[in-house]
């Protein structure tokens, strides 16, 4: 029982990381229709940024998180400005920005590999490597910190999108770009902010996840795949779907790995199996689009 509960705490923390990556996908996808597979690279780059900031810069880990998010927000904004906007403004097809971002994925990855050796770098969590128990629930400091931070981030985004005119205007762009522009909404600005915000969120996910393992270039691909799968599972229509999808995916992964009588290598198949199942059976994900409040 204690074993199961500890597993659930750690699975919830993993689910939160997946949920944040899914949110990074969602923030770009909703207003622009672009699926940005570089989200995983952004998470990895965020982790490196936090490592550099806290190791070389000497900033405490808790401050390294917003600092890394800020660095990646700038990178995300530059990426949109330099690679996506020129394509959109010259009337390129829908696929062009997606391919351009895949190209950026490779560039990001190689730049990191060339700048750092292929080593793994340690990153401290804000509260170190302790273990904490709340009654039956037990887990590492970092697991509980991830869950708390993720909930705070999702509440913030939910409030912004649901409760402010600005948030509703972003949503209006997602629903009908043309009408939104003619209602006075600046599409360029919405797109630029979406990329900057997505990169910051992906970076946060990477920084939160790294203390549970290490900072390494190869962390990006699994995060990209799991975040994308979480997005499909939760559904692309609502912010909270990203978190739900992440949690469902992480539970399925961890419970299979722990209890299913299959070789651990096969447990890696849980994510693709779940992804394909959802695409076939429930392509819109668990959460439907809301009719209206």
């Amino acid at each position, binding site marked *: 029982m204690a074993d199961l509960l500890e597993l659930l705490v750690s699975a919830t923390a993993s689910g939160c990381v997946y949920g944040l990556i899914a949110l990074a996908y969602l923030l770009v996808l909703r207003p622009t229709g672009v699926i940005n597979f570089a989200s995983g690279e952004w998470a990895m780059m965020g982790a490196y940024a936090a490592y550099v900031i806290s190791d070389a810069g000497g900033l405490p880990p808790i401050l390294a998180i917003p600092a890394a998010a800020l660095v990646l927000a700038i990178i995300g904004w530059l990426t949109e400005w330099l690679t996506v906007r020129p394509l959109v403004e010259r009337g390129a097809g829908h696929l062009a920005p997606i391919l351009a971002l895949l190209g950026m994925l490779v560039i990001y990855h190689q730049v990191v590999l060339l700048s750092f050796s292929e080593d793994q770098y340690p990153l401290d969590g804000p509260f170190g490597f302790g273990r904490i128990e709340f009654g039956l629930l037990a887990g590492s400091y970092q697991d509980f910190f991830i869950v708390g931070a993720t909930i705070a981030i999702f509440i913030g985004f939910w409030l*912004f999108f649901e409760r*402010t*005119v*600005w948030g*509703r*205007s972003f*949503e*209006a762009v997602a*629903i*009908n770009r*043309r*009408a*939104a*522009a*003619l*209602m*006075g*909404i*600046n*599409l*360029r600005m919405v797109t630029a*902010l979406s990329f900057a915000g997505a990169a910051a969120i992906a970076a946060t996910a990477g920084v939160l996840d790294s203390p549970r393992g290490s900072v390494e270039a190869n962390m990006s691909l699994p995060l990209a795949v799991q975040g994308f799968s979480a997005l499909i599972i939760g559904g692309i229509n609502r912010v909270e779907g990203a978190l739900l999808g992440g949690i469902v995916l992480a539970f399925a992964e961890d419970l299979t790995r722990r209890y299913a009588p299959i070789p651990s290598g096969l447990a890696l198949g849980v994510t693709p199996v779940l992804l394909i199942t959802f695409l076939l059976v429930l392509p819109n994900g668990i959460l439907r*689009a*809301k*009719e*209206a*409040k």
Partner: protein
Amino acid sequence: MTAGKTFIEISNLSKRFGGLTAVDDVDFEVREGEVLGLIGPNGAGKSTTFNLICGYYPANTGSIRLDGKEIIGQPPHKIAALGIMRTFQHNMPFEGMSVTENVMVGAHTTLHGGLIPVLLGTGRARSEERALRKKADELIDFVGLSEERDTPVTSLSFGQGRLLETARALAGEPRLILFDEPAAGLTPSECVRLSEIIRGIADRGIAVLLIEHDMHFLMSLAERVVVLNFGSKIADALPQDIRNNPAVIQAYLGDAAVIGADTENGSGADA
């Protein structure tokens, strides 16, 4: 009801799509608080003219000046912020939002504080938000959708959707509203209601540019009518003079009888 001074001047406006000249050297002006009709047979270039004014298409030649300043080349959101809002021929509500939220999004251009205070949740940002909600409520009352305030827009009738478009366009505090065939698809009683609303808008000092095929609806509202045919302006006159203008009758050819019938028995046939 006499219109105020000219604030929009359109001159030598042309737009070509490939070999087709959709709008050909058109000029007219819009005066403050007037209802200006824009008519012509199908394909005359009316909707293209709207899209040029809104900045949705770039014009090939010509100029559109608002208070003497050129607006061609400005992106649509800037033109909206300058005070030109529109409704769509096919209603385009933001689905998934309530009526109130749709109208509030229309008021987006009137927000002043920027995004940072909103993200920080400052008191000023919140009070701006409240003021906006209040304004949206007033506009919803003005168009008569008070009962539907919290209704999902997908369950509005077509006529209610048109009223919502009107309220949403008004929310941006425009100086000019473009209506693209607002009476199309409305029941007779809805037409009467919309007609009253459009007159009410003009009474607030907001100019209205109206594309409409329903001659009865148009002639009862417009103080002046511009007629396009094959992209060119063929008339710019008072409604009563338009009815007898030979060039206009010629343009409508076989449909000339329809205009005649409209003026006689007032049935709102599609021209």
